Every structure is written in C-alpha cells, then in structure tokens.
C-alpha cells in the first residue's frame, strides 16, 4: 500500500511538472473548465432549491381555485356561483377571493392587491409586503396615495409591514379591507375575483373539479396538484433557457479540451516513447495521464461546485437571479435554503469529469501501446 502511494505520488510529480511547462495555457484551461462547472452547478443548485421550497410552501395552497371565463378572459365571479359550488358533494368550504393588480406609476411596478378573509383591516388602513415598503420607501404609519378606478386619490395608512422573512410569498402584497378594495377598483359587492374550494377527501379533488365544470360550464378549476406541477415545469423551462445558453460555452470548452487532450503532438508521442524506453510500463504512462485528467477535472469540479454553492446560497445568485427568477421592477428579495440533490450532483460529475478524463486518456492509450523502439529511430 505504501509502495502504491509512493508510486502514485511520483506519477503526480511527473504529470504536474509536465502541466507546469505550459503554465498559461493549462491555467487558462483550468479556469474555463472551472467556470463552466460553476455556471452549470449554479443553475442546477438554484432551481433545485427553488423547486423544493415551492413544493413545500404550496402544499398549503387552496386545493381548488375556480375562475370564471368570459370570452376567454378572466371575469368576476358572482356570489350566486358560490352558492352553487357549496352544494357540490365533497366540498367542505367555499370562499370568494378578492384580489387584483395595481400598477403604481410612481415606481412603475405592479403590486398584488388583496382583501384577505382571515384578517379584518379597518377602512383606510393597509398591510404591505416588504418589497412594496422597500420600493416605495414606506414604513409603518406612513400614508400611501393610490389612484382609484375613477381617478380619485385614495389615501391609505400603512398599519403593518409584513416580515422580510416572508418575502418569497408576500413581497408585493398590498392587503386592505373588502370595502376599500371594492372602492379602489369599482367592484360591486357580491362579486369576487375567483373562488377557492376546500375538499374533504384529497382523493375526491379531481371528481369535485369535474362536477364544477359540469355545473358551471364557464368556469375553469385550477387544482393544487396542477399548481405544483406548474412550478416544476416553469423552473424546468427557465433552467432550460440558461442551460441552452451554456451549451455554446460547453461546446467551446469541448473543442478546447479535445484539441488539447487528443491532438497528441509529435513531441508528446516522443515523450511517451522515451518514458517507455527508460523503463515505464504502458500502465504507468496511462496512470500518469489518468492522474492528469483526474487532477484537472477534479479541481475544476470541486472548485466550480463549491463556488457555485457560495454564489447561490451565500450571495443569492446575483449572476442568474434575473433570468431564473424573472425580470421585475420590484425584485422579491429572498434567500434560498441550501439544498443539494444527489442525483443532480452525480449527473453533473458524470457530464463534466468523465468526458474530460476520456479525452485525455484515449489518445495516449493509442500512443502508449506502440513499441518503445521508435525513440531510437
């Protein structure tokens, strides 16, 4: 065993000395390789963490949301619909939601305005998400002016700023009482944006949704399981965009690595011949080259992945967030909980390290099995 280690150390001595001969070229290659692993790992880590968090949080989302469609667009749901929905067997409770969007010309951002049913906000007072407070520079006790549907200015007092830790769900929320909401948007009482259903048995959700469509053909039910699927799919799509952009970088690197590794020059061939002539076995030459591939790709993989982890979880992915989160005036400012997917890690390893080692090893193997007497000619 000690002999084996000593032998490997000599092989490493040699391969590193050989790499050190072209310092700039090999350092450049290592840097590009590391950067590639870093970029791909950042995307994977970021979207994995986001998916995990979404999957957890949205377990608490409404089981069914029912929207009314008129001419293919969302329309307000009248209270009569709620009564009809209540009669469906298996439905535990029905609730009309009041929510919508408000474009704030002052900061050119969209807020989500909501009249929550779980809290009674007195007329003229609101609760705002941390994102709004940050963008508008508003604090508790301040008065915010918004323009109603009829152009009238409405003054609202900020009664509460929602905690920053809840940003991932509440950042752009503007919560107000039902009457204020109706006055702001000119919505007649007895009309709702959409309706949420809670179903007694999880297994009945699909059946309930089918009944909803039969009963009210102009509605569209959205199931929680669909919501969760949507989140998976959307992040896959965003991940795909970034990864597609990286394909170019990947191909460039592949060419670089291939050129470097497989284009065995006459000098390198001669070198292998010399090593064999002075007493190295074919296996020693191959192991030496294996070490070269393993060291270069090992360095790139470990460094790239570790940097990516810091990038995503310590610094909140400044390089990718705009693409992965989407573009916004009001950036929801949240940090993700660190998580690593073993399968993702393994496939990253497989797709970055293994091809590089193969590209270094295969051409050398072809050269190394030839007779060593070529160096004498």
């Amino acid at each position, binding site marked *: 065993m000690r002999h084996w280690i000593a032998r490997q150390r000599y092989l490493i001595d040699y391969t590193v000395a050989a790499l050190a001969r072209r310092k700039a070229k090999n350092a450049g290659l290592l840097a590009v390789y590391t950067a590639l692993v870093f970029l791909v790992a950042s995307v994977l880590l970021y979207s994995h963490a986001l998916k995990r968090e979404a999957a957890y949080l949205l377990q608490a989302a409404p089981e069914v949301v029912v929207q009314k469609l008129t001419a293919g667009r969302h329309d307000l749901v009248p209270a009569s619909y709620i009564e009809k929905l209540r009669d469906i067997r298996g439905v535990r409770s029905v609730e009309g939601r009041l929510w919508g969007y408000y474009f704030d010309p002052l900061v050119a951002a969209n807020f989500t305005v909501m009249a929550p049913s779980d809290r009674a906000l007195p007329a003229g007072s609101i609760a705002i998400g941390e994102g709004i407070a940050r963008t508008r520079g508003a604090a508790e006790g301040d008065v915010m002016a918004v323009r109603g549907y009829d152009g009238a200015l409405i003054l609202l007092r900020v009664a509460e700023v929602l905690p920053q830790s809840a940003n991932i769900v509440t950042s752009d929320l503007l919560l107000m009482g039902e009457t204020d909401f109706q006055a702001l948007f000119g919505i007649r009482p007895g009309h709702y944006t959409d309706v949420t259903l809670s179903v007694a048995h999880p297994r009945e959700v699909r059946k309930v949704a089918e009944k909803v469509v039969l009963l009210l053909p102009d509605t569209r039910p959205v199931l929680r399981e669909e919501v969760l699927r949507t989140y998976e799919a959307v992040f896959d799509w965003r991940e795909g965009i970034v990864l597609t952009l990286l394909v170019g970088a990947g191909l460039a690197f592949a060419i670089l690595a291939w050129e470097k590794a497989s284009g065995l020059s006459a000098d390198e061939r001669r070198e292998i*011949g010399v090593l064999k002539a002075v007493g190295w076995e074919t296996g020693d030459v191959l192991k030496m080259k294996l070490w070269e591939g393993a060291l270069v790709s090992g360095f790139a993989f470990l460094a790239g992945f570790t940097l990516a982890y810091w990038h995503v979880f310590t610094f909140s992915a400044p390089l990718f967030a705009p693409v992965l989160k989407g573009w916004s005036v009001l950036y929801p400012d949240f940090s993700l909980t660190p998580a690593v997917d073993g399968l993702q890690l393994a496939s990253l390893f497989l797709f970055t390290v293994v091809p590089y080692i193969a590209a270094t090893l295969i051409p050398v193997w072809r050269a190394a099995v030839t007779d060593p007497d070529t160096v004498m000619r």
Partner: protein
Amino acid sequence: MDAFIELRGVRKAWNEGLPNQFWAVDGIDLDLARGCVTLLTGPSGSGKTTLLTLLGALSRPTEGRVRLAGEDVSSLPERFLTERRRHNFGFVFQQFNLIRGLSVLENVMLPAYPLAPPHGELRARALQLLRELGLEHRSEARVEWLSGGEAQRAAIARALINDPPVIIADEPTANLDTHLSMAFLAIVERLKAQGRTVILSSHDALVSEAPVVDRIVSLRDGKVVG
C-alpha cells in the same frame, strides 16, 4: 566467461508484410560477455541501431531468439519485457531524448518513478550521479538550456539511476567534438571499472581505436561481417 546476452539467428523486419519490407537485421548470432565494452560499427543503414534495440529489449525479433542472462526474452509479453529492461539496461540515445521542460534532476530521477523508492533516497542518488559526472551545479536547470556535452552527461546519469548492469549508447559521439568525445570515453572506462557491460554503436574512428573497447562487431546490410 558465459554470455550475458545471446542472439541466435535473430532477424528483424521493417514494414513487415508490406511490399517494401526489408530485413534490418538479417540473421545474427552474437554472444556478449559481462563486463565487456562492445562496439557495433558499420555504415549507416547497416542495422546498428536496430540491433541495439534488440539487445536492449526495446523491441522483439521477428525471427530467432534473444536470451538475457539465460532467459529467453524474445517472446515475453510487453509488461515482463519492460520489467527486464528496467532492471538490466540504461540507454543513452543519440538525441539524448531528455524530456523538455523538466529539470536535469527530474529527468535523471524519471526511470525510477515506477519503482517508487523513497523520495529523499532517490534524490540523493540522482544528485550523487550528477556530482560524479560533474553536473551537480546544473541539477535545477531545464534540460533545454544544457550544452551538448552536458545533455549527454545528464542522459548518462539517467541511464544509471536504476543501477543497471548494461549501458547501451547509440552514436554517443555523433554530436560531440573531439574533446567531449574523449571525456565520454573516460566515462565509459569508469563504467567498465564498475563492472558494467557497455554496448556502443558508432562509426567514429576515435571510438573504434579507443583502448577501452574490448570487442568490435562490424555490420553490413544487417549481417555481422567481422
């Protein structure tokens, strides 16, 4: 004295099976004794270098037998042949074949890497060899900065690092002036005094007239002529 290396009916073909096939070594019987300095001589293309590769177990004969210390090595698999070569032969190539970009010391230590001796020991041994050859002050220099004579001495040190009983040198004086050629012959004398077998190939009169040479084998067209 019994023969250390024996060749029996050895032939070596180049471009085997092709229309331009020819016999570089064409039926040679040769016995080389331990501790002797043997010179292979002959015009270029007479098969000196090919015969050296066969004697040094760098290649295998197409026909015939090569015996090394009584063991037939002509049909040994590559791995075992390497093993025999490592323990028995040190090579000084015509172009020296030092590995560029590495230091003299690293080049000298190179043949011992697969044997993995303790690093300090190997380093000391390499420095000792360089000292004996008057090259210690250049041990950290890159080999491409060496002069022809220095490069040859580095190559000799490399050939000696595993302490082989046989040293093989191909056209050792081809790139040296008279003064350096004499210095080389002095080294050969020392190797002989240490009890090593030395096999040289050369068509340099300086070498063939040197008193250190015990035996001259003349080649022509792949055959021994004298």
